[in-house]
């Protein structure tokens, strides 16, 4: 991975963001195992470089549409960890006062138009935000995160087609983690690189190593620059891998059908360890500096977990708030 030529601060920010996502997800899994989290959560461990690299290329006012596996996108946009964790535990102090949960965290103050429980549901919504940005003549861009599975939904193709036809400032980031629950994308799709679909819409499409945060960042930076310049949408496919099952309760027995060492091979590409190693090798930061970041992240996660655990549940009658019809 390339780290030369980057500001040290930017790389350390990437490191901190990725580590925060990793530790947040480990803490979420822990809550699930302890029976403190109701329902399920779809963890982002292993995919941290994608959200971090993409969101690293954004400005404060940009939009994102997120997915059921959305914690990483929110953290990379700087969402409040306390309110996220509280939402995941169904507490009234959560982003949605416990009405959304893990799959539906929304943070309008960060331009996050919602994680989404419907695969591909967020794609036209993010595209509409891009239309709105163009309509209002702002220079905002909109990111639609989606998985390999959603790349086979009609919403993806309908949205990309319109964004291309109307040169909308929208970037479609396909997080190809190989599996739609248990189904291997290679068994249901005839294009090894999902970015080639861009050709059908006459827009740029690029496939990047989704385990390499600077590679993702470079691709996103270029796409964002095009979008801001009025040159329209881009499809970015980031090849990545989720280390856990589809959700916290999925033992992922379907893995390794094509390669016995599939998971181990992908875990060697740990984007966090690899960034740290590359920076150390280039003497860009000291062990002390990394330790400091790691301690800060630990403290942030511990504080978020404590806040969430200690927060109250909403009252039963709160189910009738925020409804108008």
């Amino acid at each position, binding site marked *: 991975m390339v780290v030369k030529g980057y500001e040290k601060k930017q790389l350390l920010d990437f490191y901190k963001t990725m580590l925060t996502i990793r530790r947040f997800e480990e803490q979420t899994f822990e809550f699930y195992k302890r029976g403190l989290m109701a329902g399920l959560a779809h963890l982002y461990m292993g995919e941290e470089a994608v959200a971090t690299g993409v969101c690293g290329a954004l400005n404060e006012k940009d*939009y994102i549409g997120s997915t059921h596996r959305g914690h990483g996108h929110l953290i990379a946009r700087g969402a409040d960890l306390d309110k996220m964790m509280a939402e995941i535990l169904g507490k009234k102090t959560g982003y949605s006062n416990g009405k959304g949960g893990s799959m539906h965290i929304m943070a*309008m103050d960060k331009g996050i138009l919602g994680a989404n429980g419907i695969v591909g549901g967020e794609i036209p919504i993010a595209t509409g935000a891009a239309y709105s940005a163009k309509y209002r003549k702002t220079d905002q861009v909109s990111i639609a995160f989606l998985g390999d599975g959603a790349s086979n939904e009609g919403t993806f193709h309908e949205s990309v087609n319109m964004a291309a036809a109307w040169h909308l400032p929208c970037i479609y980031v396909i997080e190809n983690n190989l599996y739609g629950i248990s189904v291997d994308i290679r068994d249901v799709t005839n294009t090894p690189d999902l970015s080639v679909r861009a050709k059908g819409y006459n827009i740029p499409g690029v496939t990047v190593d989704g385990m390499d945060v600077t590679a993702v960042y470079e691709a996103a930076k270029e796409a964002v620059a095009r979008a801001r310049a009025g040159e329209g949408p881009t499809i970015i496919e980031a090849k990545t891998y989720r280390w856990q099952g589809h959700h916290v309760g999925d033992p992922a027995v379907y893995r390794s059908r094509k390669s016995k060492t599939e998971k181990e091979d992908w875990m060697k590409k740990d984007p966090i360890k690899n960034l740290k190693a590359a920076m150390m090798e280039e003497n860009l930061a000291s062990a002390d500096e990394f330790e400091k970041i790691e301690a800060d992240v630990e403290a942030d996660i511990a504080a978020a977990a404590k806040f969430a655990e200690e927060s109250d549940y909403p009252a039963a009658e709160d189910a009738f708030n925020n409804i108008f019809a």
Partner: protein
Amino acid sequence: MRKIKYAKAINEALDKIMAEDENVMVIGEDVGFIGGNFKCTEGLLEKYGDMRVKDSPISEQGFVGMGVGMALTGLRPIVEVMFSDFLLVAADQVINQMAKITYMSGGQAKVPMTIRCPIGAGRSSAAQHSQSMQAMIAHFPGIKVAVPSTAQEAAGLLMTAVYDDNPVVVFEHKMEYNKTFEVDDVIKPIPFGKARIAREGKDITIAATSSMVMKSEAAAERLAKEGIDCEVIDLRTIVPLDKDTIIESVKKTGRLLVVDEAHERCGIGAEVGAAVADDIFYYLDAPVGRIGNPDVPLPFSPALEFPLIPSEDKVYEKVKTYFK
């Protein structure tokens, strides 16, 4: 007063709202160059330009979903879905997204979006272009549902819909677009949840929606000549539903007939009937009656289609059964 076509009243309302608020835009199939399949957006493209009046590709899920995204980010989109049947193509965006985002976000986000779409049978359009989706959409919490009757109602309810900060589906009736109505010189917004007493009467309450209001009024005229005095209530919106006006009327008449063009099964008739029975059962002198499309898909042949559609005659006949 003046006389204009129903489609023209809608067109005027759209023009007025777009002139008032630069964040209002229209998107949908054929809304631009040809001014809409039913001519409701005629002239708007020329006046407001191609960003505000957008001809979409045939991608209902895509452009309805884009409407949600626009509504979340400062615009007030009016999305035209060419036939209410096509709402089903966009059902995820309507029901799972548009209706639920405000709730799921704990009130952080508003979705000030209007969907306009026509309902109704009568054009030999067969089973996929003749349905009336209002009862189905009304089932889901988080969507306001307007079912205008006359041209004035269609324009007035549309204005209220667009300025509402929450999503609204306005079901226009495709058999009315080309009919001429008397309207006020200046049509004003009509508040939601306030039913209109279209005709006062004391013998039976007919609660109706959309075109069925006019059909019920026509039936009431005939019945009046036979000494049966019908009160016709135009529900205007079914979400919110003005239960109070219906209940006050039934307390007076003791009889209730609900007329809505959607299928009878799980329909507005069942809903209104149950609401009334719940509250004022002992005021009822007779069972609540319902008229809707029978529970078969709408067939193509006029010989098959017309006998199914709720009509003035059907209302007339049904009311007569109460006074044998």
